[in-house]
């Protein structure tokens, strides 16, 4: 029998969920002030439950009687359907998870109910809404866009009408084969799409040839395994493939583009450094590892989770964080996560709701869901989220970007791993369900307006506490030496994890042994499910019992699902029957080589004429209010950025603790003074002009952010994350190759090694417009550079807030006429102009000289110049410190004395810093920079006035109270 408990806030506490619904409905233009009430509900499947037991369950588990009131009855009781506050024309809507979708709260409730000794078979969470005043169409839109997410939840309008909680059906084993030997090329391509394999024609043909040779058709599991392993997501076949490139830098032919650019730079640096090489493991494990502390190395990885976040922002971002944390847990023999990063790209939140293409969620809802998804996973895991960025551009409308990063700390003797022949294959953590089927292949396809209905199953739902338990158990097992290797179950699920770990040995798995969330999963679903919170270990037989017991003590399920058998083959069995067998060689090296053409022609340089006027204060205010620049405090404060106790430089600093830090600094080993600086650089606007200079600028930004807080430029490791459009298009691929060449060049020049990277291609969205024409929106080429710097002594760190009136302000670095892609151009809707470039040698000198000055204690505050240039940096430093400042643009170091006032104010030239120096440190500061031939000049000072005044010789061109500047900067994204 099905019971229901409905919970509502007691008066006068607000119905917060109803308020959210009304707000979203207003934002989507469905109803200016929607009449809606809500209840949080639990459905309980239990045979025998008396009134006393129901009351005990409600009051001991589900209801906080001080803050909440409830009703409990059989689910069929009509009283439960009545609205809490009576009114006319209220429609009841139920929202509950689709059968088979992860419902972690329900699982906890089942266990807690059993703890109380009350027999409950199953629990399901549900929400109820009573909505008034909407017609059927509007109600349907409210249901789809505000009340429920169609990818994971179902709506029941009117009476509930169910009498039990559905989980899954029975499964009758039946071996499936896929007849493809006789298919034509066209039929093969159709199969690739309809079966969601998303393989290239040549790859499908290679598979067909192989099975023709074998004289049989593949089983479904064999075909799926190949598709997962060969997917763009798992193999990076485009960028690691053959490319013939033609660009302004000449013609080049790559056998393996990434290996010959970015990886090659790191390898050259490591050779150059010899015994001083501080890289430990690069581009081969789940994350890059570098030396840090005598006892521990650092690992860093950044992943993307774009397509799932487009369909289900909360779940997509949530599992994006969960996935990158597992990457860190699965690096070496397991690293401990110590901080997270997050970078998002969205369409502007002001996008008109009725301008959205079909199948696209409103960017405001996407943003809110993504932020909450990141928040809930990181906070629950107890990992501080310390650094990030948010970029806005119309072209992210159908295809938002979600980058999630994680840094880990790993004992120096645990950085390497190697499964041994005969080791058991052990799965630990969450159970396998039907969630996330085809995530790896789906993420390699283009998003379309139908993606949601096609690939709903690709969306995963996270359970951070399961992963926290797995982390606790895994790190304890690592310290006891109970396994020889570990990897995470990410894209492709077991198929990828086991296939990768067993590549050099071979593996035999028994799929019926994998614990499942519910009955009814086929052997193939078990094999490719991307259910979250699972790790795979290779465990010597002698350690199995101890590992099992350790996991049990942490409440973590551990199961032997096979062994790494030295056969060179991947053998899959179900209930003793072989369902598939693939030679490891074919799986990992059998993909046919494809030569792709890549061409790049940078945009023609056109003049950009900035507005000519006397007073540029309105321009400064407009740039401060621009989305990319505006304060992200409303997001940052939702993240726990201090857990683990290592916080040194927080994301927000200053007299009111609301100024924007350049980078975060943490101290991961609490009794050591060593610090880690985490920063990023991203500027897709420059890519519209030239992707080489976009990449160089992003690297410059990431490095200068680290240097600005005190990191040593000789110890900065970089990560690349390329998010691009469809790289089957020659120009799109060309723009990527050009960016990769910039990464190689600067990495070599600055001795800042790339240690890990990841790409996400096919970030395009296509749909049919109102006139029935096929439209495609490609994202702008978007390269995220993440930087991890090291600081020998955190007490030398500096922050960006002005400290004391009377201190001098020095501009370090050369200002040029580089307004192309700038925020001045953005707020005036101007195109053209020179894109900011990087001059590698002077830049390197600047980083090292400034670092020496910071280490010597000469710098009171330091802020990098980025979007909005000098004017924005000065404004931010002033309002963060609660002080005024007076600057003279005429004193700024420039390459051309005739540089205009707007260029001096707003140019985004790279490698520049604004530094505050106390009078008694000025001599030492200028000497350090002069000796290194670094351009710098004293351009003003901090003042008590509370006003920012910027002159150009004798003309005042900006003057504003800092309160006004700060309000402009804070208002845009305040809520």
């Amino acid at each position, binding site marked *: 029998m099905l019971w229901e408990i409905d919970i509502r806030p007691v008066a006068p*506490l607000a119905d*917060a969920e109803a*308020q*959210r619904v009304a707000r979203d409905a207003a934002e989507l233009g469905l109803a200016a002030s929607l009449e809606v009430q809500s209840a949080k509900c639990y459905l309980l499947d239990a045979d025998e439950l008396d009134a006393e037991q129901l009351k005990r369950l409600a*009051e001991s*588990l*589900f209801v*906080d*009687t*001080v*803050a909440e009131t409830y009703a409990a009855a059989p689910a069929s009781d009509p009283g439960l359907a009545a609205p809490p506050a009576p009114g006319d024309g209220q429609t009841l809507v139920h929202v509950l998870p689709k059968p088979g979708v992860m419902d*972690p*709260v329900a699982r*906890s*409730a089942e*266990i*807690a109910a059993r*703890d*109380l000794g009350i027999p409950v078979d199953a629990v399901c969470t549900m929400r109820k809404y009573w909505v008034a005043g909407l017609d059927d169409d509007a109600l349907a839109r409210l249901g789809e866009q505000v009340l429920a997410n169609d990818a994971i939840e179902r709506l029941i309008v009117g009476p509930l009408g169910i009498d039990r909680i559905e989980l899954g059906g029975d499964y009758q084993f039946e071996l499936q084969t896929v007849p493809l030997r006789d298919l034509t090329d066209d039929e093969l391509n159709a199969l690739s799409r309809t079966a969601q394999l998303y393989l290239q024609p040549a790859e499908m043909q290679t598979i067909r040839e192989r099975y023709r040779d074998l004289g049989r058709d593949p089983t479904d599991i064999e075909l799926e395994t190949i598709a997962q392993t060969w997917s763009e997501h798992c193999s990076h076949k485009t960028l690691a493939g053959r490319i013939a490139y033609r660009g302004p830098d000449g013609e080049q032919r790559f056998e393996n583009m990434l290996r010959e650019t970015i990886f090659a730079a790191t390898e050259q640096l490591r050779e150059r450094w010899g015994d001083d090489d501080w890289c430990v493991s690069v581009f081969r494990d789940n994350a890059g590892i570098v030396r840090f502390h005598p006892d521990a190395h650092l690992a860093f990885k950044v992943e993307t989770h774009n397509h799932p976040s487009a369909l289900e922002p909360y779940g997509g971002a949530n599992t994006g964080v969960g996935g990158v944390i597992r990457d860190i847990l699965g690096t070496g023999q397991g690293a401990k996560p110590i901080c997270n990063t997050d970078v998002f790209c969205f369409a502007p939140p002001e996008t008109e709701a009725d301008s959205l293409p079909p199948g696209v969620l409103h960017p405001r809802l996407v943003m809110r869901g993504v932020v909450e998804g990141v*928040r809930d996973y990181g*906070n*629950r*895991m*107890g990992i501080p989220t310390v650094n990030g960025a948010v970029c806005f551009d119309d072209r992210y409308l159908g295809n938002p970007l979600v980058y999630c990063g994680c840094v880990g700390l790993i004992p120096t003797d645990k950085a390497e791993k190697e499964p041994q022949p005969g080791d058991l294959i052990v799965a630990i953590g969450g159970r396998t369900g039907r969630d996330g089927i085809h995530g790896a292949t789906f993420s390699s396809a283009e998003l379309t307006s139908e993606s949601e209905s096609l690939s709903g199953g690709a969306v995963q739902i996270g*359970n*951070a*506490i399961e992963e*926290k*338990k797995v982390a*606790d158990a895994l790190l304890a097992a690592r310290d006891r030496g109970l396994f020889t290797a570990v990897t995470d179950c990410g894209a492709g699920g077991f198929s990828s994890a086991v296939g990768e770990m067993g590549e050099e040995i071979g593996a035999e798995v028994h799929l019926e042994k994998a614990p499942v969330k519910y009955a009814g999963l086929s052997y193939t679903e078990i094999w490719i499910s991307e259910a979250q919170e699972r790790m795979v270990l290779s465990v010597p037989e002698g350690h199995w019992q101890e590992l099992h017991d350790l996991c049990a*003590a*942490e*409440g973590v399920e551990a199961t032997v699902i096979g062994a790494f058998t030295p056969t060179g083959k991947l053998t899959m069995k179900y209930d003793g029957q072989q369902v598939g067998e693939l030679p490891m060689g074919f799986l990992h090296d059998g993909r046919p080589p494809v030569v792709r053409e890549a061409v790049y022609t940078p945009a023609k340089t056109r003049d950009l004429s900035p507005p000519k006027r006397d007073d540029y204060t309105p321009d400064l205010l407009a740039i401060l209010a621009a989305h990319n620049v505006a304060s992200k405090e409303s997001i940052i*404060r*939702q*993240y*726990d*950025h*201090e*857990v*683990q*106790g*290592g*916080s*040194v430089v*927080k994301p927000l*600093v*200053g007299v009111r*603790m609301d100024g924007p830090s350049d980078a975060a600094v943490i*101290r991961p080993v*609490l*009794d050591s003074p060593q610090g880690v600086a985490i920063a990023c650089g991203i500027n897709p606007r420059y890519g519209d002009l030239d992707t080489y200079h976009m990449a160089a600028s992003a690297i410059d930004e990431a490095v200068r952010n680290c240097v600005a807080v005190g990191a040593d430029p000789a110890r900065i490791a970089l990560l690349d994350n390329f998010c691009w459009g469809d790289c089957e298009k020659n120009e799109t691929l060309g723009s990527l190759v050009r960016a990769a060449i910039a990464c190689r060049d600067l990495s070599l020049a600055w001795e800042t090694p790339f240690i890990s990277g990841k790409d996400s291609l096919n970030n395009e969205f296509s749909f049919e417009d109102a006139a029935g024409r096929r439209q495609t929106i490609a994202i702008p080429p978007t390269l995220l550079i993440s930087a991890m710097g090291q600081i020998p002594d*955190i007490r030398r*760190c*500096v*922050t960006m*807030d002005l*400290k004391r009136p009377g201190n001098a302000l020095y501009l370090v670095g050369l200002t040029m006429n580089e307004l192309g892609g700038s925020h001045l151009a953005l707020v005036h809707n101007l195109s053209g102009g020179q894109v900011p470039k990087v001059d590698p040698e002077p830049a390197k000198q600047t980083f090292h000289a400034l670092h020496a000055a910071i280490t010597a204690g000469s710098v009171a*505050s330091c802020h990098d110049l980025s979007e909005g240039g000098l004017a924005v940096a000065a404004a931010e430093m002033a309002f963060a*410190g609660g002080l005024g400042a007076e600057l003279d643009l005429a004193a700024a170091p420039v390459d051309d004395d005739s540089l205009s006032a707007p260029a001096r104010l707003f140019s985004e030239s790279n490698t520049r810093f604004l530094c505050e120096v106390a009078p008694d440190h000025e001599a030492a500061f200028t000497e350090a920079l002069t000796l290194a031939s670094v351009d710098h000049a004293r351009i003003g000072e901090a003042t008590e006035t509370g006003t920012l005044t910027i002159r150009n010789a004798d003309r005042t061109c900006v003057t504003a109270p800092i309160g006004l500047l700060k309000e402009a900067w804070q208002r845009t994204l305040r809520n």
Partner: protein
Amino acid sequence: MPSPSVLILRAPGTNCEAETAFAFEQAGAATSLEHVDRLLDNPAAVEQHQILCIPGGFSYGDDLAAGRVFANRLRTLSDTLHRFRESGGLALGICNGFQVLLKSGLLDTEDDSGPSATLAWNTSGRYTDRWVTLEAVGDKCPFLAGVGSLELPIAHAEGRFLPRDDAALSTLVDEGRAVLRYAPLAEGAPADNPNGSAADIAGLCDRTGRVLGLMPHPERCIAPTQHPQWTRRELGEAGAGLAVFKNAVAYFA
């Protein structure tokens, strides 16, 4: 002086245990970290310690309600834990630990009408991490002896102290148990109350004063460099939060 021993009790989802142990160690205590299931197997183990601490986190995912599942488990040890308190032990619950203590009944907030107070959702409806200024009130609670005013971070979604009614609030205040309050940023201003707590209550102790629950995180302010303004203010050798742990150690001196 032998160091007092602290039992730091964790559950699945607890996540502030390492820095909390570090804080107690910096204050001179010995710590041992145990999973609550081990204590359920062997409740007498608590008697080997002088201080019990439940650190922050999301125990059992805060599924159902913050701290609820952990609290229900502690209820099965109610006799043992009350004996621990009566024999002079101290207990500290930080953030999620406060939610657990409150819902377990160990803070003496239950009467014939049921629970007299809870920690509800912040009025903002959101998880919030920020720094607050606090004022220790009265001398009932040994953890806060001589603390006066201090700055600490909060990081929670469900920290709004909510009494059942005015009478319940008056009782707690009159008994001197509302020992930690959110304070104004400037003299004469209203308290900088981050979550809508009644009477600006940030921490509550039991009738003996020896059990303290608080929402702010003292373990996140042990070193001056943990303070958001350490690059612009003289903050001394230690962070303000260390006093809470030192007081606990000194109590057994």
